């Protein structure tokens, strides 16, 4: 989940300049732009940061793809983009230290997958991790150091594991795969191929993003990621580096020039949008950024001292208790002044927590004159949230972050084809909260105004007063906008999704592809059946909604003790409008409170029969129950949590929906989460100016749920890609590992 503070970009500076000569994107991602260090007043700045290698059709053709990347042309004319990921316990280089962690391919710079809608992404995952005692995983065999792969965090893609197929055998985006390390590969499987088709041009049911009229969209263009999802030890494995970025669409796919109109009511563009967009893309430098942190001990050198050193990985140190100091060297001693925290902080001289971009501590990123910087950043941290902002240095003016996409989706609802050039301005924000697992594309221009060299610090403001854990203020990188003598009148727009009605041709094509896909009797059965542990779904006829409550402390029926657990209820709202707490819960449809351990058989399989689990029934012809479900997320613990659900995008519910449709008195129900705080718990559209069709509705796959609050979200289960078995959980992975996760099963006939 990403939260933003709003400032309309209409106040941006007016500029004018002729366009620069074009430069191809492939030359950019091949590394033609170097990030060099600069002289700064800061104590130490890291040297040139390298970006992770990109596995795509373009880099494969250019010969710059990383080892293990392969491209295969498929019968449908699209590509299969494949990477090999070997999970291994090997030394890697992180910000001047050689550290042995659990990682992929012996490298902290894991490959970026770039694929197009219609392509298939494939990962061969092999587990050769060393056995490791783990604090988590009470129900598993930790000595085997098992792993798996959530190959498409953020994708509306299939897990391919619908009932009655064994959940662990699905070869889509399936986190129930269980791979032990190769201690005895003759007995246990230690490798697996995950093959995930990305819905192509107008193949995805547009109702998943609530387009009620238009029919079909392509898979949203934006930044997603892949990572280990092994319950009990996911925090450890992701912190070690077992993650990477996954882009749907080219890196600059969401860079778009705005349509300039004579008046706000006019729809005729005075400029050539396509030409301006090409020009903008040609002068866009792409910076993929893996935002990671790792805790180290037994340091052989101070983090701020240049040169190489060694350290030990300390994956069990994952907490920032309230009021804990985390210091940095001011030249003589450890200081609490956050200005000295250049990509690290220390609680004592022998340990450190590193906060890196692409494994580099406090890198410097240069943007040449007339060029713009597109930062495609994923917070792939296990547990840490970042509230990002740019702070100016010297004579540089304040600069905000212009957001092109959040959590892999361009904000807004899908537009009809004839509205594709509707001017939807990209918005700028003074700060962007990137919770763990969130991604953002933000655009920094250096082609608009004539200026001297400007310096900015990209930093996290720190996140405090959020409960029993908090995150420090850290300076992450320096961005240098070199002296510029160019100007430009081109404005940046949102590359809004376009939806199309289902033409006869598309319908037949879709029908045909479904016939081929579901031709086997087994798959037909999978569409129509569910496991015996299914709890009934919501009844849309009586406006039922789901309440999901997070508790702490629990003991399962099997006797496992967990730190966290989840209760799910089906609520039957009645009039008059009342506090959400006072709405009626169907006692027969309540699950838990339970931790994930209650479902875990301890051998890599899940009990789908007992206890009951959340089930969603998609059947547009009869019940329509999966469409626009209200989920009320309630946090009864003293700690911030970060709700996430797979194969899904959701948005905040509006005040009007909550009051009119569900009889919820919003103001007395949000609890401790009431504006103006860092968080939003619902979307108060009553106060928003503008056309709701083009208003910046943000789609998320994670969202923070502050202690004592309720967060109201709407999600739609409408697409065949969502059928199968997956999970919802807290994406602060140390919480997920200790119980805060629940299974979910989606079945039916979309």
């Amino acid at each position, binding site marked *: 989940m990403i939260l933003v503070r709003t400032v309309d970009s209409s106040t941006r500076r007016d500029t004018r300049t002729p366009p620069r000569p074009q430069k191809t994107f492939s030359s950019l991602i091949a590394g033609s732009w170097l990030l060099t260090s600069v002289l700064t007043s800061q104590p130490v700045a890291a040297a040139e940061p390298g970006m992770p290698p990109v596995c795509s059709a373009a880099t494969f053709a250019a010969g710059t793809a990383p080892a293990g990347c392969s491209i295969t042309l498929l019968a449908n004319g699209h590509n299969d983009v494949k990477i090999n990921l070997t999970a291994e316990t090997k030394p890697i280089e992180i910000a001047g230290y050689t550290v042995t962690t659990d990682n992929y391919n012996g490298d902290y710079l894991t490959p970026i997958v770039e694929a197009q809608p219609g392509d298939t992404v494939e990962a061969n995952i092999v587990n050769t991790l060393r056995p490791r005692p783990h604090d988590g995983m009470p129900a598993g065999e930790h000595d085997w150091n098992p792993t798996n792969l959530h190959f498409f965090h953020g994708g509306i893609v299939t897990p391919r594991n619908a009932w009655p197929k064994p959940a662990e055998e699905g070869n889509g985006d399936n986190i129930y795969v269980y791979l032990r390390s190769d201690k005895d590969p003759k007995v246990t499987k230690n490798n697996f191929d995950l093959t995930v088709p990305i819905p192509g041009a107008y193949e995805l049911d547009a109702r998943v993003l609530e387009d009620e009229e238009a029919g079909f969209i392509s898979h949203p263009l934006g930044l997603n990621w892949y990572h280990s999802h092994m319950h009990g030890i996911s925090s450890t494995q992701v912190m070690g580096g077992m993650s990477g970025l996954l882009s749907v669409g080219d890196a600059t796919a969401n860079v778009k020039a705005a349509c300039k109109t004579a008046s706000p009511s006019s729809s005729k563009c005075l400029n050539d949008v396509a030409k301006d967009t090409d020009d903008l893309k040609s002068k866009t430098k792409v910076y993929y950024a893996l935002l990671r942190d790792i805790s180290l001990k037994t340091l052989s050198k101070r983090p701020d001292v240049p040169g190489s050193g060694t350290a030990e990985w300390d994956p069990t140190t994952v907490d920032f208790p309230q009021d804990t100091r985390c210091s940095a060297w001011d030249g003589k001693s450890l200081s609490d002044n956050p200005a000295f925290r250049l990509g690290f902080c220390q609680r004592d001289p022998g340990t450190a927590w590193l906060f890196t971009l692409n494994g580099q501590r406090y890198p410097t990123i240069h943007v040449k004159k007339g060029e713009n910087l597109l930062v495609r950043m994923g917070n792939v941290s296990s547990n840490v949230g970042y509230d990002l902002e740019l702070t100016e240095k010297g004579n540089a003016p304040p600069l905000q972050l212009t957001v092109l996409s959040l959590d892999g989706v361009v904000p807004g609802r899908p537009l009809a084809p004839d509205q594709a050039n509707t001017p939807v301005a990209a918005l700028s924000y003074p700060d962007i909260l990137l919770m763990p697992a969130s991604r953002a594309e933000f655009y920094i221009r250096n082609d608009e105004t004539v200026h001297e060299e400007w310096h900015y610090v990209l930093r996290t403001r720190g996140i405090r007063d959020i409960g029993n854990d908090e995150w420090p203020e850290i300076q992450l990188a320096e961005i240098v906008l070199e002296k510029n003598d160019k100007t430009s009148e081109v404005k940046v727009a949102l590359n809004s999704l376009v939806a199309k009605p289902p033409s006869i041709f598309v319908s037949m094509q879709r029908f045909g592809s479904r016939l081929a896909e579901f031709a086997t009797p087994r798959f037909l059965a999978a569409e129509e059946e569910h496991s015996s542990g299914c709890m009934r779904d919501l009844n849309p006829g009586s406006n039922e909604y789901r309440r999901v409550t997070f508790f702490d402390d629990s003991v399962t029926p099997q006797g496992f003790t967990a730190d966290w657990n989840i209760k799910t209820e089906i609520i039957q709202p009645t009039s008059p409008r009342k506090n959400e707490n006072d709405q009626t819960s169907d006692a027969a449809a309540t699950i838990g409170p339970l931790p994930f351990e209650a479902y875990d058989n301890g051998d890599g399989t899940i009990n789908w029969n007992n206890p009951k689990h959340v089930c969603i029934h998609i059947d547009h012809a009869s019940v329509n129950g999966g469409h626009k479900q209200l989920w009320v997320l309630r946090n009864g613990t003293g700690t911030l949590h970060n709700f996430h659900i797979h194969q899904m995008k959701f948005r905040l519910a509006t005040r009007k929906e909550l009051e009119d449709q569900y009889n919820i008195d919003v103001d007395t129900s949000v609890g401790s989460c009431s504006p103006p705080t860092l968080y939003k718990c619902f979307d108060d559209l009553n106060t928003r100016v503008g056309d709701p069709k083009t208003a910046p509705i943000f789609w998320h796959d994670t969202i923070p749920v502050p*202690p*004592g609050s309720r967060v109201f979200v709407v999600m739609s289960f409408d697409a065949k890609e969502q059928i199968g078995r997956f999970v919802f959980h807290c994406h602060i992975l140390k919480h997920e590992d200790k119980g805060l996760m629940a299974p979910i099963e989606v079945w039916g006939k979309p």
Partner: protein
Amino acid sequence: MKNRISILCVGVGALALSAGTSVAADTHVIVATDDLQWSYNGQKSQLITVGDLKKGDIVEIQVPDKLTFAHGFITINTGPPITTTEDPVLKCGEAGGPKEKTAVLKEDCAPGAASQFGLTFKGSMKLIVTDKFKNDVPFWCVKHKGIMRGVLKLQIPTPR
């Protein structure tokens, strides 16, 4: 949440513990809520101040039965780092022990009753302000810790 809990400072007529004085004692009721806030004197907050205590007063912590979430009460040292401490409170069953002479709060116990201090509970727990009470006493919910904090303070004497 705007549901207000009414002011519940009730004079109970208890005798002040201060030797030689006879001042009507008040009961200061702090109520835990499902919003993970404390409610006191009609105000709800994640950081409350009970700033009008007198020696002999009673601080009553209530956790209503109907609440979804568990709560409890324990005193803390503010650090950093923050740590819990039982030193300021003479718990049920500790009468006659070393804390008898130092405790600034005394748990009000029925004969043989177990202490609720430092534990989650439903219902009510009463703490009597002893004549040792001088400095502020910070506390938090045993379950929700930093998100539900507060401080107990003596009333500032009105200048004559």
